[in-house]
């Protein structure tokens, strides 16, 4: 099966500009997650979709970040306007859910390295 695909792989933008990241999860995976890793630190949760619905967006840093998942398929994460501290690697991951309390591991995409200058 095809893996999780993220686009672009790299993006360099100026402070104040807008950037949109895209994630195509594995087909059939209802769960889609966005995470961010900054400066070699931990991988921090941003939000979680179940199909097209936002299940948990407690990790979104502020209202400059907007995530959508059209029709429960691919997802986009828009940063507008970008700030210097938004730099980092943005990972998307997807997973199955099988029954209550049963979980699979995540399949991660290759990430988008965002640099705000």
């Amino acid at each position, binding site marked *: 099966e095809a893996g999780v695909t993220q686009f672009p792989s790299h993006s360099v933008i100026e402070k104040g500009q807008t950037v949109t990241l895209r994630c195509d999860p594995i087909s059939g995976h209802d*769960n889609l*997650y966005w*995470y961010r890793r900054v400066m*070699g*630190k*931990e*991988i*921090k*949760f941003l939000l*979680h979709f*179940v199909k097209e619905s936002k*299940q*948990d967006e407690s990790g979104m840093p502020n209202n400059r970040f907007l995530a959508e998942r059209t029709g429960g398929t691919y997802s986009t994460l828009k940063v507008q306007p970008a700030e210097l501290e938004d730099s980092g690697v943005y*990972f998307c*991951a997807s*997973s199955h*859910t099988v029954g209550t*309390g049963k*979980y*699979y*591991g*995540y*399949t*991660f*995409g*290759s*990430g988008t390295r965002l640099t705000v200058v």
Partner: protein
Amino acid sequence: GQQVMQIPQYQHVQEGEDFTTYCNSSTTLSNIQWYKQRPGGHPVFLIQLVKSGEVKKQKRLTFQFGEAKKNSSLHITATQTTDVGTYFCAGRTSVSGQKLVFGQGTRLTINP
């Protein structure tokens, strides 16, 4: 909120030496997963532990889940250069749902 602490942050070993990374949670975990991220790569799922005191092995890798389900460890026996990378633990609680909380990772480098 829930925190997952991982130590050490860095570990450099000679090829053939053993390596261990430790993971501690501030809250009881319903399950814990381990991931490996190669340099320049993305995290790849290794294993999931669910039961108290569970031990699982994958070739030279041994994973343990503590009796209290608040800590875990990954031990690699006789490291090889292919083991280079960052190892992350990630846990869930009964209230975090599907969300995984990741530790800071342990970056392993190996001298051949």
